Protein backbone atom coordinates (compact mmCIF):
# COMPACT_ATOMS: atom_id res chain seq x y z
CA UNK A 1 0.00 0.00 0.00
CA UNK A 2 2.70 2.39 1.07
CA UNK A 3 5.17 1.11 -1.49
CA UNK A 4 3.23 2.33 -4.48
CA UNK A 5 3.68 5.98 -3.61
CA UNK A 6 7.29 5.57 -2.54
CA UNK A 7 8.97 7.29 -5.46
CA UNK A 8 6.83 10.35 -4.99
CA UNK A 9 6.79 10.36 -1.20
CA UNK A 10 10.53 9.82 -0.77
CA UNK A 11 11.68 13.30 -1.75
CA UNK A 12 8.92 14.86 0.32
CA UNK A 13 9.90 12.81 3.34
CA UNK A 14 13.58 13.69 2.88
CA UNK A 15 12.63 17.38 2.77
CA UNK A 16 10.65 17.00 5.98
CA UNK A 17 13.57 15.18 7.63
CA UNK A 18 15.96 17.94 6.61
CA UNK A 19 13.58 20.62 7.86
CA UNK A 20 13.09 18.86 11.19
CA UNK A 21 16.80 18.35 11.70
CA UNK A 22 17.63 22.01 10.95
CA UNK A 23 14.94 23.02 13.43
CA UNK A 24 16.40 20.64 16.02
CA UNK A 25 19.94 21.92 15.53
CA UNK A 26 18.72 25.49 16.04
CA UNK A 27 16.87 24.41 19.17
CA UNK A 28 19.90 22.53 20.46
CA UNK A 29 22.12 25.63 20.06
CA UNK A 30 19.55 27.94 21.64
CA UNK A 31 18.85 25.63 24.57
CA UNK A 32 21.82 26.41 26.89
CA UNK A 33 21.15 30.14 26.49
CA UNK A 34 17.52 29.76 27.52
CA UNK A 35 17.98 27.43 30.48
CA UNK A 36 19.58 28.66 33.69
CA UNK A 37 18.73 25.73 35.89
CA UNK A 38 21.61 23.33 36.22
CA UNK A 39 19.20 20.53 37.14
CA UNK A 40 17.19 20.91 33.95
CA UNK A 41 20.31 20.99 31.77
CA UNK A 42 21.60 17.87 33.56
CA UNK A 43 18.33 16.09 32.86
CA UNK A 44 18.54 17.14 29.21
CA UNK A 45 22.02 15.61 28.95
CA UNK A 46 20.65 12.40 30.48
CA UNK A 47 17.75 12.49 28.00
CA UNK A 48 20.26 12.79 25.13
CA UNK A 49 21.89 9.59 26.33
CA UNK A 50 18.51 7.86 26.42
CA UNK A 51 17.72 9.14 22.94
CA UNK A 52 21.04 7.84 21.59
CA UNK A 53 20.54 4.36 23.06
CA UNK A 54 16.91 4.27 21.97
CA UNK A 55 17.81 5.29 18.41
CA UNK A 56 20.27 2.41 18.24
CA UNK A 57 17.75 -0.06 19.67
CA UNK A 58 15.31 1.24 17.10
CA UNK A 59 17.88 0.64 14.35
CA UNK A 60 18.26 -2.90 15.62
CA UNK A 61 14.62 -3.76 16.28
CA UNK A 62 12.60 -1.23 14.32
CA UNK A 63 14.59 -1.36 11.10
CA UNK A 64 16.34 -4.74 11.17
CA UNK A 65 13.80 -6.71 13.23
CA UNK A 66 16.33 -8.10 15.73
CA UNK A 67 14.58 -8.15 19.10
CA UNK A 68 17.63 -7.82 21.32
CA UNK A 69 17.29 -7.20 25.04
CA UNK A 70 21.05 -6.77 25.47
CA UNK A 71 21.03 -3.08 24.53
CA UNK A 72 21.88 -1.85 28.01
CA UNK A 73 24.51 -4.60 28.23
CA UNK A 74 26.24 -3.06 25.18
CA UNK A 75 25.93 0.36 26.76
CA UNK A 76 27.35 -0.93 30.04
CA UNK A 77 30.12 -2.81 28.25
CA UNK A 78 31.27 0.36 26.48
CA UNK A 79 31.05 2.36 29.68
CA UNK A 80 32.83 -0.22 31.78
CA UNK A 81 35.56 -0.75 29.17
CA UNK A 82 36.21 3.01 29.02
CA UNK A 83 36.21 3.35 32.79
CA UNK A 84 38.43 0.32 33.30
CA UNK A 85 40.99 1.46 30.73
CA UNK A 86 41.21 4.81 32.50
CA UNK A 87 41.19 3.26 35.94
CA UNK A 88 43.79 0.54 35.41
CA UNK A 89 46.05 2.12 32.79
CA UNK A 90 45.60 5.77 33.70
CA UNK A 91 44.65 6.79 30.15
CA UNK A 92 42.94 10.05 29.32
CA UNK A 93 39.19 9.58 28.96
CA UNK A 94 39.15 10.86 25.37
CA UNK A 95 41.73 8.26 24.36
CA UNK A 96 39.77 5.48 26.05
CA UNK A 97 36.43 6.26 24.38
CA UNK A 98 37.17 4.63 21.04
CA UNK A 99 38.73 1.44 22.49
CA UNK A 100 35.71 1.26 24.81
CA UNK A 101 33.27 1.46 21.90
CA UNK A 102 35.27 -1.06 19.89
CA UNK A 103 35.30 -3.53 22.75
CA UNK A 104 31.52 -3.19 22.91
CA UNK A 105 31.47 -4.08 19.20
CA UNK A 106 33.61 -7.16 19.86
CA UNK A 107 31.30 -8.15 22.71
CA UNK A 108 28.26 -7.64 20.51
CA UNK A 109 29.77 -9.78 17.76
CA UNK A 110 30.40 -12.60 20.23
CA UNK A 111 26.84 -12.31 21.50
CA UNK A 112 25.61 -12.07 17.92
CA UNK A 113 27.50 -15.19 16.86
CA UNK A 114 25.80 -17.07 19.65
CA UNK A 115 22.32 -15.62 19.25
CA UNK A 116 21.72 -14.54 15.67
CA UNK A 117 21.51 -18.04 14.25
CA UNK A 118 18.17 -17.99 16.01
CA UNK A 119 15.18 -15.86 15.17
CA UNK A 120 12.47 -13.85 16.87
CA UNK A 121 11.71 -14.65 20.48
CA UNK A 122 14.71 -16.95 20.88
CA UNK A 123 17.02 -13.97 20.27
CA UNK A 124 15.12 -11.92 22.84
CA UNK A 125 15.34 -14.62 25.50
CA UNK A 126 19.03 -15.36 25.00
CA UNK A 127 20.10 -11.73 24.94
CA UNK A 128 18.06 -11.09 28.09
CA UNK A 129 19.78 -14.02 29.77
CA UNK A 130 23.20 -12.74 28.71
CA UNK A 131 22.49 -9.25 30.04
CA UNK A 132 21.26 -10.68 33.34
CA UNK A 133 24.32 -12.89 33.63
CA UNK A 134 26.56 -9.88 33.12
CA UNK A 135 24.69 -8.05 35.88
CA UNK A 136 24.88 -11.00 38.28
CA UNK A 137 28.57 -11.60 37.66
CA UNK A 138 29.43 -7.94 38.30
CA UNK A 139 27.27 -7.61 41.40
CA UNK A 140 28.48 -10.83 43.02
CA UNK A 141 32.14 -10.13 42.25
CA UNK A 142 33.87 -10.05 45.65
CA UNK A 143 37.37 -11.24 44.82
CA UNK A 144 40.11 -8.67 45.41
CA UNK A 145 41.86 -7.63 42.24
CA UNK A 146 43.89 -4.66 43.43
CA UNK A 147 44.20 -2.75 46.66
CA UNK A 148 43.45 0.96 46.53
CA UNK A 149 44.82 2.29 49.77
CA UNK A 150 43.43 -0.10 52.33
CA UNK A 151 40.28 -0.80 50.32
CA UNK A 152 39.88 -3.96 48.32
CA UNK A 153 38.86 -3.39 44.69
CA UNK A 154 37.28 -6.02 42.51
CA UNK A 155 38.23 -6.37 38.86
CA UNK A 156 34.75 -5.38 37.68
CA UNK A 157 34.24 -2.86 40.47
CA UNK A 158 31.67 -5.12 42.16
CA UNK A 159 28.39 -3.68 43.32
CA UNK A 160 29.94 -0.20 43.67
CA UNK A 161 31.42 0.22 40.22
CA UNK A 162 34.08 2.71 39.23
CA UNK A 163 34.37 6.39 40.06
CA UNK A 164 36.91 9.17 39.71
CA UNK A 165 38.82 7.89 36.71
CA UNK A 166 38.85 11.18 34.83
CA UNK A 167 36.36 13.38 33.00
CA UNK A 168 35.86 15.01 29.63
CA UNK A 169 38.17 17.90 30.58
CA UNK A 170 35.39 20.48 30.49
CA UNK A 171 35.75 21.31 34.20
CA UNK A 172 39.34 22.48 33.75
CA UNK A 173 38.49 24.32 30.53
CA UNK A 174 35.17 25.99 31.26
CA UNK A 175 35.16 26.07 35.10
CA UNK A 176 31.62 26.85 36.23
CA UNK A 177 30.13 26.39 32.78
CA UNK A 178 31.36 22.79 32.45
CA UNK A 179 27.86 21.39 32.19
CA UNK A 180 27.23 23.44 29.04
CA UNK A 181 30.44 22.02 27.60
CA UNK A 182 29.32 18.48 28.37
CA UNK A 183 25.92 19.28 26.91
CA UNK A 184 27.58 20.39 23.67
CA UNK A 185 29.67 17.21 23.52
CA UNK A 186 26.75 14.85 24.18
CA UNK A 187 24.49 16.75 21.78
CA UNK A 188 27.16 16.38 19.10
CA UNK A 189 27.38 12.67 19.86
CA UNK A 190 23.62 12.38 19.45
CA UNK A 191 23.65 14.38 16.21
CA UNK A 192 26.46 12.30 14.70
CA UNK A 193 24.68 9.09 15.74
CA UNK A 194 21.45 10.25 14.11
CA UNK A 195 23.17 11.30 10.88
CA UNK A 196 25.01 7.97 10.56
CA UNK A 197 21.82 6.08 11.40
CA UNK A 198 19.97 8.05 8.71
CA UNK A 199 22.64 7.25 6.13
CA UNK A 200 22.54 3.55 7.08
CA UNK A 201 18.76 3.38 6.96
CA UNK A 202 18.62 5.00 3.50
CA UNK A 203 21.55 3.03 2.06
CA UNK A 204 21.23 -0.31 0.21
CA UNK A 205 22.27 -2.21 3.34
CA UNK A 206 19.51 -0.41 5.23
CA UNK A 207 17.05 -1.64 2.61
CA UNK A 208 18.39 -5.16 3.15
CA UNK A 209 17.79 -4.80 6.91
CA UNK A 210 14.22 -3.74 6.27
CA UNK A 211 13.64 -6.50 3.77
CA UNK A 212 14.81 -9.04 6.32
CA UNK A 213 12.42 -7.59 8.85
CA UNK A 214 9.39 -7.42 6.59
CA UNK A 215 9.73 -10.80 4.90
CA UNK A 216 12.80 -12.84 5.87
CA UNK A 217 12.03 -15.69 3.51
CA UNK A 218 11.67 -13.48 0.45
CA UNK A 219 14.74 -11.40 1.34
CA UNK A 220 16.90 -14.51 1.73
CA UNK A 221 15.57 -15.87 -1.55
CA UNK A 222 16.65 -12.63 -3.25
CA UNK A 223 20.19 -13.13 -2.03
CA UNK A 224 20.38 -11.23 1.26
CA UNK A 225 22.53 -13.07 3.78
CA UNK A 226 20.45 -12.87 6.94
CA UNK A 227 23.14 -13.89 9.41
CA UNK A 228 25.78 -11.50 8.02
CA UNK A 229 23.41 -8.56 7.65
CA UNK A 230 22.02 -8.95 11.16
CA UNK A 231 25.50 -9.38 12.63
CA UNK A 232 26.50 -6.16 10.85
CA UNK A 233 23.58 -4.18 12.24
CA UNK A 234 24.26 -5.67 15.66
CA UNK A 235 27.85 -4.42 15.47
CA UNK A 236 26.93 -0.95 14.19
CA UNK A 237 24.32 -0.49 16.87
CA UNK A 238 26.75 -1.72 19.54
CA UNK A 239 29.41 0.74 18.39
CA UNK A 240 27.27 3.82 18.97
CA UNK A 241 25.68 2.37 22.09
CA UNK A 242 29.10 1.52 23.51
CA UNK A 243 30.42 4.95 22.58
CA UNK A 244 27.47 6.51 24.36
CA UNK A 245 28.29 4.28 27.34
CA UNK A 246 31.83 5.65 27.40
CA UNK A 247 30.58 9.23 27.28
CA UNK A 248 28.06 8.38 30.00
CA UNK A 249 30.81 7.09 32.29
CA UNK A 250 32.92 10.16 31.52
CA UNK A 251 30.05 12.62 32.02
CA UNK A 252 28.98 11.22 35.38
CA UNK A 253 32.56 10.26 36.27
CA UNK A 254 31.13 7.03 37.59
CA UNK A 255 29.68 3.79 36.33
CA UNK A 256 28.01 0.99 38.25
CA UNK A 257 25.93 -2.12 37.64
CA UNK A 258 22.71 -0.14 38.14
CA UNK A 259 22.53 0.74 34.44
CA UNK A 260 22.13 -2.99 33.69
CA UNK A 261 18.93 -3.19 35.72
CA UNK A 262 15.70 -4.24 34.08
CA UNK A 263 14.04 -0.86 34.65
CA UNK A 264 16.68 0.96 32.57
CA UNK A 265 16.16 -1.44 29.67
CA UNK A 266 12.40 -1.01 30.01
CA UNK A 267 12.76 2.75 29.85
CA UNK A 268 14.64 2.47 26.55
CA UNK A 269 12.02 0.10 25.15
CA UNK A 270 9.24 2.38 26.37
CA UNK A 271 10.86 5.37 24.68
CA UNK A 272 11.06 3.56 21.36
CA UNK A 273 7.56 2.13 21.59
CA UNK A 274 5.90 5.39 22.58
CA UNK A 275 7.82 7.33 19.94
CA UNK A 276 7.26 4.80 17.20
CA UNK A 277 9.15 1.59 16.43
CA UNK A 278 10.73 1.68 13.00
CA UNK A 279 10.35 5.42 12.51
CA UNK A 280 13.44 7.59 12.30
CA UNK A 281 12.26 10.33 14.65
CA UNK A 282 10.40 7.99 16.98
CA UNK A 283 13.13 7.57 19.63
CA UNK A 284 13.63 11.34 19.92
CA UNK A 285 9.90 12.03 20.25
CA UNK A 286 9.59 9.18 22.73
CA UNK A 287 12.48 10.52 24.80
CA UNK A 288 10.97 13.99 25.00
CA UNK A 289 7.53 12.65 25.96
CA UNK A 290 8.71 10.06 28.46
CA UNK A 291 11.39 12.15 30.15
CA UNK A 292 8.81 14.90 30.59
CA UNK A 293 6.26 12.38 31.89
CA UNK A 294 8.92 10.96 34.18
CA UNK A 295 9.66 14.40 35.61
CA UNK A 296 5.95 14.97 36.20
CA UNK A 297 5.58 11.58 37.85
CA UNK A 298 8.56 12.32 40.08
CA UNK A 299 6.05 14.36 42.09
CA UNK A 300 4.04 11.16 42.50
CA UNK A 301 7.23 9.46 43.64
CA UNK A 302 6.60 5.80 44.18
CA UNK A 303 4.00 5.43 41.43
CA UNK A 304 6.59 6.23 38.78
CA UNK A 305 7.45 2.67 37.79
CA UNK A 306 3.80 1.64 37.88
CA UNK A 307 2.92 4.47 35.54
CA UNK A 308 5.79 3.64 33.21
CA UNK A 309 4.64 0.02 32.90
CA UNK A 310 1.09 1.09 32.12
CA UNK A 311 2.32 3.63 29.57
CA UNK A 312 4.24 0.88 27.74
CA UNK A 313 1.25 -1.46 27.68
CA UNK A 314 -1.28 1.20 26.73
CA UNK A 315 0.80 2.77 23.99
CA UNK A 316 1.35 -0.58 22.26
CA UNK A 317 -2.39 -1.21 22.50
CA UNK A 318 -3.61 2.18 21.35
CA UNK A 319 -0.87 3.21 18.93
CA UNK A 320 1.24 0.27 17.74
CA UNK A 321 3.27 2.59 15.52
CA UNK A 322 3.86 5.14 18.27
CA UNK A 323 3.31 8.86 18.30
CA UNK A 324 5.22 9.39 15.06
CA UNK A 325 3.14 6.70 13.37
CA UNK A 326 -0.05 8.32 14.64
CA UNK A 327 1.17 11.68 13.32
CA UNK A 328 1.79 10.05 9.94
CA UNK A 329 -1.75 8.63 10.02
CA UNK A 330 -3.09 12.06 10.81
CA UNK A 331 -1.13 13.66 7.95
CA UNK A 332 -2.26 11.09 5.40
CA UNK A 333 -5.84 11.43 6.64
CA UNK A 334 -5.65 15.20 6.18
CA UNK A 335 -4.14 14.79 2.73
CA UNK A 336 -6.82 12.26 1.86
CA UNK A 337 -9.54 14.61 3.07
CA UNK A 338 -8.09 17.49 1.09
CA UNK A 339 -7.99 15.36 -2.01
CA UNK A 340 -11.55 14.22 -1.37
CA UNK A 341 -12.62 17.82 -0.92
CA UNK A 342 -10.80 18.79 -4.13
CA UNK A 343 -12.45 16.00 -6.10
CA UNK A 344 -15.81 16.95 -4.60
CA UNK A 345 -15.32 20.42 -5.97
CA UNK A 346 -14.54 19.12 -9.47
CA UNK A 347 -17.59 16.91 -9.27
CA UNK A 348 -19.72 19.89 -8.46
CA UNK A 349 -18.30 21.84 -11.36
CA UNK A 350 -18.97 19.12 -13.88
CA UNK A 351 -22.76 19.09 -13.84
CA UNK A 352 -22.64 22.88 -13.91
CA UNK A 353 -20.67 22.88 -17.16
CA UNK A 354 -22.74 20.14 -18.77
CA UNK A 355 -25.91 21.83 -17.76
CA UNK A 356 -25.06 24.88 -19.76
Amino acid sequence: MNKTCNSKGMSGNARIDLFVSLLLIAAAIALPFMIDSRYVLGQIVLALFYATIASQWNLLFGFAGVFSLAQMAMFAFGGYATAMICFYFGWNVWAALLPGALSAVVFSLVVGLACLRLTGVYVALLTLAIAQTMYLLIVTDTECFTMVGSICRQFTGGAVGFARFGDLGTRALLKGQWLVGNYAIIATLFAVTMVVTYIIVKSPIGLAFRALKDNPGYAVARGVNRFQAQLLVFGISAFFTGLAGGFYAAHFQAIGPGILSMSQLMFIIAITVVGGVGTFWGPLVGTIVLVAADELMREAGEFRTLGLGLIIALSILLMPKGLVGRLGDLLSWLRHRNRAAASAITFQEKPATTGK
Partner: protein
Amino acid sequence: MLDILTAILIAGLTTGALYALATVGLSLVWGSMGMLNMAHAAMLTLGGYSAFTLCTVLGLPVIAGFAGAILVGAVAGGLLYVLIVRNLLKTDKATFESNVMIATVGIGIALENAILLTYGGQPLKQPISATGSFILGPVSLPYQNMLIVLVVIALMAVIALLLGRTRMGRAIRATAQNREAAQLMGVAVNSVYFQVLVLSGAIAGICGVMVSSMTQLSPPLGNDPMLKAFIMCVVAGLGNLPGAVAAAFGLALLEAFVQYVAGARWGFPTLLFVVIAVLIWRPAGLFGRVQIRRM
Protein backbone atom coordinates in the same frame (compact mmCIF):
# COMPACT_ATOMS: atom_id res chain seq x y z
CA MET B 1 30.29 -38.17 50.13
CA LEU B 2 26.87 -39.76 50.06
CA ASP B 3 25.24 -36.99 52.05
CA ILE B 4 26.70 -34.34 49.75
CA LEU B 5 25.44 -36.20 46.74
CA THR B 6 21.96 -36.59 48.18
CA ALA B 7 21.94 -32.93 49.18
CA ILE B 8 22.75 -31.94 45.60
CA LEU B 9 20.17 -34.37 44.32
CA ILE B 10 17.44 -33.10 46.63
CA ALA B 11 18.20 -29.46 45.85
CA GLY B 12 18.35 -30.19 42.13
CA LEU B 13 15.10 -32.13 42.07
CA THR B 14 13.23 -29.53 44.12
CA THR B 15 14.34 -26.56 42.04
CA GLY B 16 13.83 -28.70 38.96
CA ALA B 17 10.22 -29.27 39.96
CA LEU B 18 9.73 -25.53 40.48
CA TYR B 19 11.36 -24.65 37.16
CA ALA B 20 9.29 -27.30 35.43
CA LEU B 21 6.12 -25.70 36.73
CA ALA B 22 7.21 -22.21 35.64
CA THR B 23 8.35 -23.56 32.27
CA VAL B 24 5.10 -25.40 31.59
CA GLY B 25 3.10 -22.22 32.19
CA LEU B 26 5.23 -20.29 29.71
CA SER B 27 5.54 -23.05 27.17
CA LEU B 28 1.81 -23.77 27.10
CA VAL B 29 1.05 -20.18 26.13
CA TRP B 30 3.82 -20.03 23.57
CA GLY B 31 2.95 -23.37 22.01
CA SER B 32 -0.72 -22.68 21.52
CA MET B 33 -0.78 -18.99 20.68
CA GLY B 34 2.76 -17.92 19.78
CA MET B 35 2.80 -15.45 22.63
CA LEU B 36 5.69 -14.96 25.02
CA ASN B 37 4.23 -13.88 28.33
CA MET B 38 6.76 -11.58 29.97
CA ALA B 39 4.26 -10.90 32.77
CA HIS B 40 4.52 -14.52 33.91
CA ALA B 41 7.00 -13.56 36.67
CA ALA B 42 4.61 -11.01 38.10
CA MET B 43 1.78 -13.58 37.99
CA LEU B 44 3.97 -15.96 40.00
CA THR B 45 4.56 -13.26 42.58
CA LEU B 46 0.86 -12.43 42.64
CA GLY B 47 0.03 -16.06 43.45
CA GLY B 48 2.51 -16.14 46.33
CA TYR B 49 1.20 -12.91 47.81
CA SER B 50 -2.47 -13.85 47.53
CA ALA B 51 -1.78 -17.06 49.51
CA PHE B 52 -0.03 -14.87 52.10
CA THR B 53 -2.99 -12.50 52.28
CA LEU B 54 -5.53 -15.28 52.72
CA CYS B 55 -3.60 -17.32 55.29
CA THR B 56 -1.62 -14.81 57.33
CA VAL B 57 -3.68 -11.65 57.08
CA LEU B 58 -7.18 -13.20 57.00
CA GLY B 59 -6.24 -16.31 58.99
CA LEU B 60 -7.90 -18.81 56.66
CA PRO B 61 -6.70 -22.44 56.47
CA VAL B 62 -3.84 -23.47 54.21
CA ILE B 63 -6.09 -25.09 51.63
CA ALA B 64 -7.94 -21.80 51.15
CA GLY B 65 -4.60 -20.09 50.54
CA PHE B 66 -3.79 -22.61 47.85
CA ALA B 67 -7.19 -22.27 46.22
CA GLY B 68 -6.97 -18.49 46.44
CA ALA B 69 -3.57 -18.44 44.71
CA ILE B 70 -4.93 -20.60 41.90
CA LEU B 71 -8.03 -18.44 41.56
CA VAL B 72 -6.15 -15.14 41.57
CA GLY B 73 -3.65 -16.48 39.02
CA ALA B 74 -6.47 -17.67 36.78
CA VAL B 75 -8.28 -14.34 37.02
CA ALA B 76 -5.03 -12.50 36.21
CA GLY B 77 -4.58 -14.70 33.15
CA GLY B 78 -8.16 -14.08 32.07
CA LEU B 79 -7.82 -10.34 32.52
CA LEU B 80 -4.60 -10.37 30.52
CA TYR B 81 -6.52 -11.93 27.64
CA VAL B 82 -9.56 -9.66 27.86
CA LEU B 83 -7.64 -6.41 28.25
CA ILE B 84 -4.50 -6.90 26.21
CA VAL B 85 -4.18 -10.03 24.10
CA ARG B 86 -7.65 -9.91 22.56
CA ASN B 87 -7.01 -6.42 21.26
CA LEU B 88 -3.54 -7.20 19.98
CA LEU B 89 -4.77 -10.28 18.13
CA LYS B 90 -6.86 -8.00 15.94
CA THR B 91 -3.70 -6.38 14.58
CA ASP B 92 -1.31 -7.77 12.04
CA LYS B 93 -0.16 -11.31 12.80
CA ALA B 94 3.46 -10.52 11.94
CA THR B 95 3.75 -7.81 14.58
CA PHE B 96 1.75 -9.70 17.21
CA GLU B 97 4.77 -11.64 18.46
CA SER B 98 6.83 -8.59 19.39
CA ASN B 99 3.88 -6.36 20.31
CA VAL B 100 2.49 -8.80 22.84
CA MET B 101 5.95 -9.22 24.31
CA ILE B 102 6.38 -5.48 24.83
CA ALA B 103 2.86 -5.11 26.19
CA THR B 104 3.31 -7.93 28.71
CA VAL B 105 6.65 -6.45 29.75
CA GLY B 106 4.76 -3.28 30.65
CA ILE B 107 2.04 -5.20 32.49
CA GLY B 108 4.68 -7.19 34.34
CA ILE B 109 6.46 -4.06 35.58
CA ALA B 110 3.20 -2.42 36.59
CA LEU B 111 2.01 -5.53 38.46
CA GLU B 112 5.31 -6.05 40.27
CA ASN B 113 5.33 -2.40 41.28
CA ALA B 114 1.71 -2.56 42.42
CA ILE B 115 2.63 -5.48 44.68
CA LEU B 116 5.61 -3.52 45.99
CA LEU B 117 3.36 -0.55 46.79
CA THR B 118 0.73 -2.73 48.49
CA TYR B 119 2.90 -5.02 50.58
CA GLY B 120 6.16 -3.08 50.85
CA GLY B 121 9.61 -4.29 49.87
CA GLN B 122 10.53 -6.19 53.02
CA PRO B 123 10.60 -9.98 52.67
CA LEU B 124 7.61 -11.81 54.17
CA LYS B 125 7.25 -15.38 55.28
CA GLN B 126 5.08 -17.66 53.19
CA PRO B 127 2.66 -19.38 55.60
CA ILE B 128 2.17 -22.42 53.38
CA SER B 129 5.26 -24.41 54.24
CA ALA B 130 6.12 -27.59 56.05
CA THR B 131 8.82 -27.95 58.68
CA GLY B 132 10.85 -30.92 59.79
CA SER B 133 12.27 -33.70 57.70
CA PHE B 134 11.92 -37.37 57.04
CA ILE B 135 14.93 -39.34 58.27
CA LEU B 136 15.82 -42.43 56.28
CA GLY B 137 19.10 -43.87 57.55
CA PRO B 138 21.86 -41.37 56.71
CA VAL B 139 19.60 -39.38 54.40
CA SER B 140 17.23 -36.69 55.61
CA LEU B 141 14.48 -35.50 53.31
CA PRO B 142 12.91 -32.17 54.31
CA TYR B 143 9.12 -32.37 54.20
CA GLN B 144 9.03 -29.05 52.36
CA ASN B 145 11.00 -30.43 49.42
CA MET B 146 8.90 -33.60 49.35
CA LEU B 147 5.74 -31.50 49.37
CA ILE B 148 6.94 -29.43 46.42
CA VAL B 149 7.93 -32.42 44.32
CA LEU B 150 4.64 -34.19 45.10
CA VAL B 151 2.53 -31.14 44.29
CA VAL B 152 4.38 -30.62 41.03
CA ILE B 153 4.00 -34.27 40.00
CA ALA B 154 0.29 -34.16 40.82
CA LEU B 155 -0.10 -30.96 38.82
CA MET B 156 1.78 -32.37 35.86
CA ALA B 157 -0.57 -35.34 35.88
CA VAL B 158 -3.58 -33.03 35.97
CA ILE B 159 -2.23 -30.91 33.12
CA ALA B 160 -1.41 -33.99 31.06
CA LEU B 161 -4.92 -35.35 31.60
CA LEU B 162 -6.45 -31.99 30.81
CA LEU B 163 -4.53 -31.66 27.55
CA GLY B 164 -4.70 -35.31 26.55
CA ARG B 165 -8.16 -36.45 27.52
CA THR B 166 -10.60 -33.54 27.55
CA ARG B 167 -12.41 -31.72 24.80
CA MET B 168 -10.73 -28.48 25.86
CA GLY B 169 -7.32 -30.12 25.72
CA ARG B 170 -8.01 -31.41 22.24
CA ALA B 171 -9.01 -27.94 21.10
CA ILE B 172 -5.84 -26.47 22.62
CA ARG B 173 -3.64 -29.05 20.92
CA ALA B 174 -5.41 -28.57 17.61
CA THR B 175 -4.92 -24.80 17.80
CA ALA B 176 -1.27 -25.28 18.67
CA GLN B 177 -0.72 -27.52 15.66
CA ASN B 178 -2.48 -25.38 13.12
CA ARG B 179 -4.55 -22.38 14.03
CA GLU B 180 -6.28 -21.93 10.69
CA ALA B 181 -7.16 -25.60 10.27
CA ALA B 182 -8.53 -25.75 13.82
CA GLN B 183 -10.64 -22.69 13.11
CA LEU B 184 -11.98 -24.22 9.92
CA MET B 185 -12.91 -27.38 11.82
CA GLY B 186 -15.08 -25.29 14.13
CA VAL B 187 -12.75 -24.73 17.07
CA ALA B 188 -13.45 -21.36 18.66
CA VAL B 189 -9.84 -20.22 18.62
CA ASN B 190 -10.43 -17.12 20.71
CA SER B 191 -11.99 -19.03 23.57
CA VAL B 192 -9.10 -21.52 23.37
CA TYR B 193 -6.70 -18.61 23.85
CA PHE B 194 -8.73 -17.44 26.82
CA GLN B 195 -8.66 -20.93 28.37
CA VAL B 196 -4.92 -21.29 27.81
CA LEU B 197 -4.15 -17.99 29.54
CA VAL B 198 -6.44 -18.83 32.46
CA LEU B 199 -4.80 -22.25 32.81
CA SER B 200 -1.31 -20.78 32.62
CA GLY B 201 -2.26 -18.13 35.18
CA ALA B 202 -3.52 -20.80 37.57
CA ILE B 203 -0.28 -22.77 37.17
CA ALA B 204 1.70 -19.58 37.79
CA GLY B 205 -0.30 -19.00 40.98
CA ILE B 206 0.59 -22.40 42.43
CA CYS B 207 4.16 -22.06 41.26
CA GLY B 208 4.42 -18.73 43.09
CA VAL B 209 3.24 -20.31 46.34
CA MET B 210 5.75 -23.14 45.97
CA VAL B 211 8.68 -20.86 45.09
CA SER B 212 7.98 -18.49 47.96
CA SER B 213 7.66 -21.38 50.43
CA MET B 214 11.27 -22.29 49.60
CA THR B 215 12.57 -18.77 50.04
CA GLN B 216 10.58 -15.72 51.10
CA LEU B 217 7.98 -13.45 49.61
CA SER B 218 9.35 -10.38 47.90
CA PRO B 219 8.11 -8.37 44.89
CA PRO B 220 10.85 -9.57 42.49
CA LEU B 221 10.16 -13.17 43.56
CA GLY B 222 9.11 -14.44 40.15
CA ASN B 223 11.98 -12.97 38.13
CA ASP B 224 14.60 -15.59 38.88
CA PRO B 225 12.43 -18.66 38.16
CA MET B 226 11.09 -16.98 35.03
CA LEU B 227 14.53 -16.18 33.65
CA LYS B 228 15.51 -19.81 34.15
CA ALA B 229 12.20 -21.01 32.75
CA PHE B 230 12.93 -18.94 29.63
CA ILE B 231 16.25 -20.67 29.22
CA MET B 232 14.68 -24.09 29.72
CA CYS B 233 11.95 -23.34 27.21
CA VAL B 234 14.59 -22.30 24.70
CA VAL B 235 16.66 -25.44 25.26
CA ALA B 236 13.68 -27.70 24.94
CA GLY B 237 12.24 -25.84 21.99
CA LEU B 238 9.46 -23.39 22.80
CA GLY B 239 6.05 -25.01 23.05
CA ASN B 240 7.24 -28.55 23.72
CA LEU B 241 5.80 -29.52 27.13
CA PRO B 242 7.43 -32.90 27.88
CA GLY B 243 10.74 -31.55 26.59
CA ALA B 244 10.40 -28.51 28.82
CA VAL B 245 9.90 -30.68 31.90
CA ALA B 246 12.89 -32.85 31.02
CA ALA B 247 15.06 -29.77 30.37
CA ALA B 248 13.92 -28.21 33.67
CA PHE B 249 14.99 -31.21 35.74
CA GLY B 250 18.22 -31.75 33.80
CA LEU B 251 19.35 -28.14 34.00
CA ALA B 252 18.30 -27.77 37.65
CA LEU B 253 20.45 -30.79 38.61
CA LEU B 254 23.34 -29.34 36.63
CA GLU B 255 22.87 -25.98 38.32
CA ALA B 256 22.80 -27.53 41.80
CA PHE B 257 25.96 -29.46 41.00
CA VAL B 258 27.84 -26.44 39.62
CA GLN B 259 26.73 -24.29 42.52
CA TYR B 260 28.17 -26.84 44.91
CA VAL B 261 31.44 -27.29 43.02
CA ALA B 262 32.21 -23.76 41.84
CA GLY B 263 30.12 -21.52 44.09
CA ALA B 264 26.63 -20.08 43.78
CA ARG B 265 27.51 -17.27 41.39
CA TRP B 266 28.58 -19.62 38.59
CA GLY B 267 25.33 -21.59 38.51
CA PHE B 268 23.47 -19.34 36.11
CA PRO B 269 26.38 -18.52 33.75
CA THR B 270 27.06 -22.24 33.34
CA LEU B 271 23.44 -22.84 32.41
CA LEU B 272 23.69 -20.08 29.87
CA PHE B 273 26.80 -21.54 28.26
CA VAL B 274 25.17 -24.95 28.04
CA VAL B 275 22.14 -23.38 26.42
CA ILE B 276 24.17 -21.45 23.87
CA ALA B 277 26.16 -24.56 23.01
CA VAL B 278 22.95 -26.55 22.56
CA LEU B 279 21.47 -23.83 20.37
CA ILE B 280 24.49 -23.62 18.10
CA TRP B 281 24.21 -27.36 17.69
CA ARG B 282 20.41 -27.43 17.31
CA PRO B 283 18.92 -23.97 16.62
CA ALA B 284 15.33 -25.10 17.26
CA GLY B 285 16.12 -26.57 20.68
CA LEU B 286 16.83 -30.12 21.78
CA PHE B 287 13.35 -31.46 21.15
CA GLY B 288 12.09 -28.80 18.77
CA ARG B 289 11.30 -29.65 15.21
CA VAL B 290 12.74 -27.52 12.45
CA GLN B 291 9.80 -25.70 10.99
CA ILE B 292 9.29 -25.53 7.31
CA ARG B 293 7.78 -22.17 6.53
CA ARG B 294 5.70 -21.64 3.43
CA MET B 295 5.40 -18.28 1.82
